[in-house]
């Protein structure tokens, strides 16, 4: 909390510090080793390196580079997938059976051969461990009892995956690109399993190597994970057994540095090659420096303000729409999120299948007042808003507080720590909340499911989608979201998602504000550094240094 406040002051103070230091001459430049890429990044969200358990941002990048999946996201056309370990695949006419043919002669980093048995065992371990990301696979009807039948090796190079419904093939394939679909070196992991006493919740006598894999590595990606020390460092090293184009660099080192200002200093001094957490002010300075460069990519994370439908005022349809006219989108885009985000009013991220590119709302006080009057709230109303103490959400909340004030709505901001506001939000105890949502896997169903479906709106409902968290009861949209999953024609499927997004624009309690852009500051000699649409496709293998 205190740190958050101080962060905000850093920029101002840094300006003063810079002024005082201008008199001093420039020093000799430090350089990182020629065969090593050194990145500074806040990696404190990494709590495990087991693909069956990991579900946060920074480990997605490590796993995406160190493991291979059956199929990978094509970062040149993000509505498609490309081969990974699988060379080709076919879908049966009834849409239930997927047969993957593996590339022949592949090896894990350990030297063990990659076989379809490894793939099957990887699926089995995910389903049986049943950690946070396991639902990405279990949603296809896999259970602890049937997984060995439904995900099966027909022979050494043929893997057969049977799903329970005739899903859109794009949905199935997109889900398999997630890090939870990583192909594990079963022989290696089995050497490291720990015994477990079976209980009612966990009926197996070993941990499938989960304990060892928290820090261990058993993959086949272009890099292998050599070392991880929490909140300190992560080291990737070239995997010489990789079947594809081998990385030009021998290693990639991630250093945990949290401060934007510190990262910028290190980048300018040449102690790091890439800075990953630059705030708008530092980013601008880096982009103006002739020795440095910047790169960016839109990410699958959207920021929104949500309105709890348990609040009688916020539950009025006119009020929901009025608030969408009371965000100063232009000003926010030009200042608070400059370079780190792009205004977006639909909930699907740009680049995903069926994303609707439509920003119908503008800041319009007169229109909003008209709507409020229709709702019988001519003189406005008072409401609270939970805001966590980090930028840019604090700034956006303050801007929103000021702009809705112009229509007579009085917002009281309740500041809090990130986990604290989230706890309250998940218990549906808020009025308004400002938050972000990152896609679970690169498929439109991920966001459609959370924003426009709510299977059970009761307080004890177990599917706590964002719609549930805001008590938005939408049986029709919930059905429609389900139906889109089973539409096997890609174009028709895309059209269905567009309709869902339009419905959200017209009626939802979500005021979508922007889509996050990930930015990185680079030393001038770093080439081919390209950020992907999600964190597991931030591939570092092509990077070279002059």
């Amino acid at each position, binding site marked *: 909390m205190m740190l958050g406040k101080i962060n905000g002051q850093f920029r101002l103070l840094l300006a003063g*510090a810079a002024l005082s230091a201008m008199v001093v001459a420039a020093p000799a430049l430090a350089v990182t080793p020629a065969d090593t890429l050194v990145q500074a990044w806040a990696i404190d969200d990494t*709590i495990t390196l087991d693909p069956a358990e990991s579900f946060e941002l920074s480990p997605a990048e490590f796993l995406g580079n160190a493991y291979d999946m059956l199929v990978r996201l094509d970062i040149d056309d993000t509505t498609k997938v490309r081969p990974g370990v699988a060379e080709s695949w076919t879908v049966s006419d009834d849409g239930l059976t997927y047969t993957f043919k593996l590339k022949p002669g592949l090896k894990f980093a350990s030297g063990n051969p990659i076989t379809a048995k490894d793939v099957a065992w990887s699926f089995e371990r995910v389903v049986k461990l049943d950690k946070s990301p396991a639902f990405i696979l279990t949603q296809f009807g896999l259970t602890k009892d049937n997984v060995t039948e439904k995900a099966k090796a027909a022979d050494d190079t043929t893997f057969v995956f049977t799903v329970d419904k005739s899903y859109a093939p794009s949905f199935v394939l997109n889900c398999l690109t997630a890090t939870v679909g990583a192909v594990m070196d079963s022989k290696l992991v089995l050497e490291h399993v720990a015994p477990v006493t079976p209980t009612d919740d966990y009926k197996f006598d070993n941990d499938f190597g989960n304990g060892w894999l928290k820090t261990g590595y058993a993959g086949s990606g272009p890099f292998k994970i050599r070392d991880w020390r929490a*909140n300190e*460092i992560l080291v990737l090293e070239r995997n010489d057994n990789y079947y594809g184009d081998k990385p030009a660099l021998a290693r990639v080192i991630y*250093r945990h540095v949290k*401060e934007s200002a510190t990262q910028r200093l290190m980048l300018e001094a040449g*102690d790091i090659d890439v800075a990953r957490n630059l705030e708008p002010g530092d980013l601008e300075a880096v982009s103006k420096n002739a020795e440095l460069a910047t790169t960016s990519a839109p990410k699958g994370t959207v920021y929104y303000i949500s309105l709890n439908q348990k609040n009688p005022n916020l539950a009025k349809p006119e009020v929901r729409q009025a608030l969408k006219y009371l965000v100063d989108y232009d000003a926010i885009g030009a200042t608070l999120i400059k370079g780190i985000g792009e205004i977006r009013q639909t909930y699907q991220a740009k680049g995903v299948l069926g994303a609707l590119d439509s920003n119908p709302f503008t800041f319009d006080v007169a229109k909003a007042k008209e709507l409020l009057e229709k709702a019988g709230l001519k003189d406005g109303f008072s409401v609270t808003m939970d805001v966590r103490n980090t930028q840019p959400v604090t700034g956006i909340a303050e801007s929103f507080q000021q702009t809705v004030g112009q229509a007579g709505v009085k917002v009281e901001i309740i500041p809090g720590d990130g986990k604290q506001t989230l706890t309250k939000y998940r218990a549906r105890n808020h009025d308004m909340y400002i938050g972000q949502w990152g896609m679970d896997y690169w498929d439109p169903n991920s966001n459609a499911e959370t924003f426009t479906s709510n299977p059970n709106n009761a307080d004890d409902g177990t599917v706590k989608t964002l719609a549930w968290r805001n008590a938005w009861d939408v049986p029709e949209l919930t059905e429609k979201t389900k139906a889109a999953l089973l539409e096997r024609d890609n174009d028709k499927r895309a059209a269905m998602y567009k309709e869902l997004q339009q419905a959200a624009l017209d009626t939802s309690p979500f005021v979508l504000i922007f889509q996050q852009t990930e930015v990185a500051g680079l030393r001038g000699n770093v080439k081919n550094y390209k950020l992907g649409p999600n964190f597991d496709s931030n591939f570092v293998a092509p990077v070279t240094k002059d």
Partner: protein
Amino acid sequence: MSSMETQAPARRANKRASAILKAVVSFVVIVGTTYLGLLAVTFFIGRIVPIDPVLAIVGDRAPAHVVERTRIEMGFNLPYYQQFYLYVKGVLSGDFGTSVLTTNPVMDDIRRVFPATMELATVGTVIGAAFGIPLGVLAAVKRGSLADQIVRIIGLIGYSVPIFWLGLLALLVFYARLGWTAGPGRIDVVFEYTFTPITGFFLLDAILNRDWAAFKDIFAHIILPASLLGYFSLAYISRMTRSFMLNELSQEYIVAARAKGLSETRIIWGHALRNAAVPLVTVIALSYAGLLEGSVLTETVFAWPGLGLYITNSLQNADMNAVLGGTIIIGSVFIGINLLSDLLYRMLDPRTRIR
């Protein structure tokens, strides 16, 4: 007659032994209740903060059944008193639990981060004392002079300037502009493959490994944050030294020493400072203990993987095992250093010894 003569020292010895025993018992009782109080307060504060600890483990996007299962696995479904009982039971058998953020046993984490903080604090305190004491003495001796005013201003700046600002400024000048020191972190990444820590105190490890290139690099990394911390303890130490010295210099034994014709150097450094040293030990010890808590802001600015950063990060994620473990360590450090300065006191000042 003769028996009386042998009995008297025995009685005295007995009396002395029981006095020591009493001191030890009361010490143990005080330390024991302090620890239990410390544990209880931290534990219950940790449980009433409005943060769901399961959230930090499984993340916001986990399905409901995973959240529930984890809650049961972690024992968060039990009543608080049972959770506390289980925790204390674990601690008594040396098990401080596992940190959910790093997945390591808490004590392993602390063993890793504490040397980083301790190394920084030690170098910082050495710098603070090495400069602070002479400056304080100078200010006292030349009371009211220009030198005194300068020392006063240096101290005032040390007290009042925010450390993160000064840290960034120091980085900008000495690292980014002048290139005299190394940047944030403890050691350069080029040593990642060659340097293996033994004790966790990197300077010491480099000497043990006879790795002089690493030593140079580690020194270049530590000097800036340590000087910064040193400066802050210097501000405190020099002010305290000045006032202790002024007190001593006005004593009659100084007049007597002057009358005896002793040199001024001898009087100041040999007599006055010798006596001022007694309370000074407490001052330095407390300032050292303060630095050992881990200076969160310094560690943040300098990306120093120490205890302060560890505890703050854990606290923000409701990682209560880590917070409790860290609190116990800090408590132990305070209790230990207080004890140590008590012992030093007795060594330096015969009047406080138990008779």
